């Protein structure tokens, strides 16, 4: 859209659980708006942030929390050409999750690999 010419590497670093606070939802809103700027985008999920991608979320009123389940929005990311999704292995394993627990395809990388990826970024938006 604007600022044609400049392409930077943007990483969205998602650290928080999906529903206890609004960080995850509002982070996703930035990702979707940011997609219009044609930058080189990746998303990383660490700590409780790995829960954002958990499949089979049930957030209905009957389930007890009565919030909108926005996890399906992650499936739409590939329509925005956002396909670099990284899950930190240590965070995933500490929470008893494995690769087939996630709602979208992800790359599992360890913390050293993630640290290396971070050094390659121009902008890291940490939520």
């Amino acid at each position, binding site marked *: *859209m*604007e*600022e044609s010419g*400049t392409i*930077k590497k*943007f990483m969205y670093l998602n650290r928080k659980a999906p529903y206890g606070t*609004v*960080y995850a939802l*509002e982070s996703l*809103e*930035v990702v979707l*708006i*940011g997609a*219009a*700027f044609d*930058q080189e985008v990746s998303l990383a999920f660490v700590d409780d942030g790995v829960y954002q991608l958990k499949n089979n979320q049930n957030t209905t009123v009957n389930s007890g929390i009565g919030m909108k389940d926005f996890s399906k929005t992650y499936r739409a990311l590939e329509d925005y050409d956002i396909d670099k999704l990284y899950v930190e292995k240590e965070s995933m394993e500490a929470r008893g999750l494995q690769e087939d627990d996630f709602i979208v395809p992800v790359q599992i990388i360890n913390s050293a690999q993630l640290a290396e990826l971070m050094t390659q970024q*121009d*902008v*890291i*938006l*940490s*939520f």
Partner: protein
Amino acid sequence: MKLGILVNEGPYQHQASDSAYHYTKAALEQGHEIYRVFFYHDGVNNGTRLTIPPQDDRNVINRWSELAKQYKLDLVVCIAAAQRRGILDENEAKRQGKDAHNLAEGFRISGLGQLIEAGIQSDRLIVFGD
């Protein structure tokens, strides 16, 4: 250096806004350029002019307004986050049929694109949050 600042937490509850303010002020005093300060999540609450802190405490909101005036800073409050939390400027209040508005002097309300643009245009984007 050209810097973008992102403030993700509200005033008084969390130190992020204080840290962002001190950082921004120090950077300006050392001759750096602040491309934009963007307020997101509860950070939008830094833009309400209705806070009344105790007299012996700092005024977080006025401090931002004064810094903006002194250095012609661009203080941008995210519209989506602001609407959720009841931060409105006069136009937005009219448009939404609300009976009041509360945006502080020196702030303006705009979209998330302004954050991405700050990331693109700045040499560094510094995030202050939890």
